[in-house]
């Protein structure tokens, strides 16, 4: 293990959780200098064939501010735009391609220098629609499956060469402490905290979502419709 890195590379693993392992992490360039935070992630939905995937790291106020505001209304986002109505790209965040990510541990390490790195998020190609993870998190889940209740708490990804495929939704009642990681069986730890958080999150489940298309998600109302063939699993890793 390279001693620049504090822990093993998650990209070598089978799966990672976007909100728990990637979102809000520090981005670090090839010289160990700090670049930005992972303020949000770009999700691409493809019209034909391939499953949806996380494709870019988004950063800057245009990415962070919408995550601060509540899902409906986006009051803060509107205020943010109104502070600079003359800028055409006020609402377009800065982006880093996932190709540059070489190591994902306690931070996100890139293989390029930070100078002049951040540019605006480009418009999508034909047949691709782009959304943000921040929009998806917290959406209500509608499904016939009796165990799937509550909200999208996280998204489980499978890293495949510069794109992280969306494989599962982590679904559960939106209670505090999900980012602490106790609910994914990741670690044990002070007994009191573990007991409380595990109890709060005992209804959490993993729902397959590889065949979810953009049309299954009502972005304005904030509802995800999961199809009949959704499989449900335990949420802990392995």
């Amino acid at each position, binding site marked *: 293990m390279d001693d620049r890195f504090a*822990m093993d590379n998650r990209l070598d693993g089978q799966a990672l959780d976007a909100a728990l392992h990637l979102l*809000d*992490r520090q981005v670090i360039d090839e010289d160990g200098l700090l670049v*930005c*935070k992972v303020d949000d992630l770009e999700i691409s939905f493809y019209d034909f064939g391939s499953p949806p995937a996380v494709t870019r790291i988004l950063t800057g106020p245009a990415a962070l501010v919408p995550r601060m505001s509540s899902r409906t209304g986006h009051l803060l986002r509107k205020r943010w735009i109104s502070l600079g109505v003359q800028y055409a790209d006020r609402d377009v965040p800065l982006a880093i391609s996932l190709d540059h990510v070489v190591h994902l541990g*306690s931070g996100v390490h890139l293989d390029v220098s930070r100078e002049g790195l951040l540019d605006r998020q480009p418009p999508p190609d034909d047949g691709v629609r782009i959304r943000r993870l921040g929009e998806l998190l917290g959406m209500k889940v509608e499904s016939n499956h009796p165990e799937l209740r509550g909200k999208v708490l996280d998204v489980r990804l499978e890293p495949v060469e510069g794109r992280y495929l969306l494989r599962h939704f982590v679904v559960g009642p939106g209670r505090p402490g999900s980012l602490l990681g106790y609910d994914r069986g990741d670690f044990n*730890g002070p007994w009191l905290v573990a007991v409380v958080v595990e109890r709060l999150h005992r209804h959490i489940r993993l729902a397959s979502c590889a065949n979810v298309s953009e049309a299954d998600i009502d972005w304005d109302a904030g509802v995800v419709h999961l199809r009949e063939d959704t499989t449900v699993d335990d949420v802990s890793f392995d």
Partner: protein
Amino acid sequence: MKKLLSLALGILTAIGGFVDIGDLVVNAQVGARFDLSMGLVVAVGVLGICVFAEMSGRVAVCSKRPTFDLVRERLGPRMGLLNLVASLIVTALTFVAEIGGVALALALISSVNPLLIVPLVGLMVWLVLWRAKFSLMENVLGLLGLALIVFAVALWKLGPDWGDLGHQMFTAAKPGDETWTTYAYYAVALFGAAMTPYEVFFFSSGGVEEGWEEKDLSTMRANVFVGFPLGGLLSLAIAGCASTLFGPLGVDVASLSQVALPVGVALGKIGLAVVLVGFVAATFGAACETGLSTGYSLGQYFGWQWGKYVKPGGATRFHLVLVVATFLAVGILMTGVDPILVTEASVVGSAVALPLTYFPILVVANDKDYMGEHINGPLANALGTVYLVLVVLAAVAALPLLVITGMGS
């Protein structure tokens, strides 16, 4: 040999850097009013900061991520922002208090009006933050801060009834003319003075600044578990001095000059000179630490390059924050607000804001992914949980107590 020297240096700076304006003022106030009946509170607070600092130092070594990175990562951007705002307010308040403390201490040396000294102190602090090397700053100010050991000498020279002091301490014998609510208020203030959040930002960020590795863990532990308790003994000596001199006279401590008085009485002009040097070093060191901490927490929340391990030109936003913070602190002090009052507010604020940073650190210290073999053991977790309950209790009680007692009057 060299390793031993650096170990000794680390411990000495930990002792000298332990006491800041909050400890000076609150310990003297409590000593004068409650004698040593709150000695156990100091002990609990010191053990708390040991547990907390060791954990955050270990987390910083293992994950290479300082405190506020983890706060945002574990609490999300919204709760993290709330946390940032609360911590920044408290840290800035402490920064104001420390700069004011330096000015007051310099005023005692020169008898110049402190208001005239404040801008100069602000300039000096900023210059150190901008130009001085991190280790130089820590070592010089930490070693000079050792001058405060003169409080222990003064206490011995004042010749209190040691049996009495011990009895007060271990039975928590509250003086009859004070109410339990005031007692509780000062207990929370003492707790906040011993366990300030900025110490942890600074400690964990400093670990990253100095590039601690796993092999430095034992040095870090020695600094914490030897240096901090000895620093805590200084706190007790300050309280003991105030109790011995002021207790019988019914004097309340309301100014920094009074904090130094027992040393002058016991040891004369030389003692007074030493203690004033100690004041300047301790408050100046803490001013640098709190100033840096404002930049650390903002930088770590927003992902900017922070720290003194890169050249100022490589961390421009961080240094801009330091400039703004210094200007702000000097501006607040120039309104003529009493730095002692700011100090009292800052220690209570510390008690309120503490759980916000304590909790994420405790959680991450249990994360196998980050910590590997250095994960919290049963003892660290047992103590960690006890202190989690304690800091939450203190945080909840702090503001109501402040209001009910009218800041302890």
